[in-house]
């Protein structure tokens, strides 16, 4: 079990966000989700952290990943 803090910035229809969340769930990783389509504060936070506008953005213990790259996330979580 990983006890790293995982945050995901997403939009509701985004399939890569859904893939990322499904991947986390399947690996029993808890995460906090922010819907940037509705939450403008979260959107600003995401833009500030990732310097870009695309979703998903995944933050793992302060490390920021743009898009869902399974390998990067596996590595960051030590899976």
């Amino acid at each position, binding site marked *: 079990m990983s006890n790293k803090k995982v945050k995901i910035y997403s*939009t509701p*229809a*985004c*399939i*890569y*966000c*859904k*893939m990322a969340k*499904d991947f986390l769930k399947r690996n029993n990783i808890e995460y906090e989700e922010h819907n*940037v*389509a509705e939450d403008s504060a979260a*959107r600003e936070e995401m833009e500030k952290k*990732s*310097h*870009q*506008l*695309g*979703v*998903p953005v995944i933050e793992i213990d302060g490390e920021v990943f*743009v*898009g869902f*790259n*399974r*390998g*990067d*996330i*596996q*590595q960051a979580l030590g899976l």
Partner: protein
Amino acid sequence: MVDLVIIGGGPAGVTAGVYAARKKMKAVLITDNFGGQSIVSEDIQNWIGIKSIAGFDLARDLEDQLRAQKGLEIIDGDLVVKVEKAGEGFAVSTQRGKTIETKTILVCSGSGRRKLGVKGEGPLNGKGVAYCSICDAPLFKDKIVAVIGGGNAGLESVRDLLQYSKKIYLMEFLDVIKGDAVTFENIKKDPKVEVIMSAAVQEILGDNLVSGLKYQDRKTNEIKELKLDGVFVEIGSTPSADFLGDLVQKNQYKEITVDCLTQKTSQEGIWAAGDVSSGLYKQNNIAVGDACKAVLNIYDYLSSQDIGKK
């Protein structure tokens, strides 16, 4: 040395994995992800055996079936970056530093999104340049955007953006729209949409974020500029086979040329199936059949080699 390396985790790759495991071949499947390109489809109605399934669910089912195979090694979250001849077989290298020696290879790496290849596109990727309208459209609320490409994907992209953006330019290189005529007529009626035909995009402008776009009007040769906040690129796909270099023959579309009886490429020991190969029609069902055929042929090939050695 393994018997077979399968490159890709779409419908073709997964089929290959299942058949290789059932033939008890010593096989390794390498993929960055599962499901292939139709993972983004909302509803697939032509996947034989199931009346209707979301691309996402199909991807999960494919992954689950693959993982249920005994004896198959799966390397996921990684990408093949190079294939070279090595001894009597090949060496397959991955982005994360793995090298696997194998007797045979089945390439099922599919296609990837085609890029414009213009100045500014790379540096501004994610900073206004986007490739997934259904994902990123909500982030362009009240902004001005351009959609590049008048095929079905481009038209759908305009439709996704209509809910959010205040102005959408639909730009097409040709002087005809190739996408669905009914969809196009509907989109065109919307006052927020402006269609620009015969437009060759030359540069995406912007320092930290997209600020505009430069294009050439192919009819007048005039160079024009648009002020924009976002550019959605929807210009089709291109086969993912760069990692093979000149090892195999490719056709004019950069697809790997295959013999349709066996899926063999021009290089002995390498087969290809699915969208990366030159077979006609890019379909999940075809990819599955071709990959199945390829693995059975690889099995025969390896068996005959073993007999030869004895």
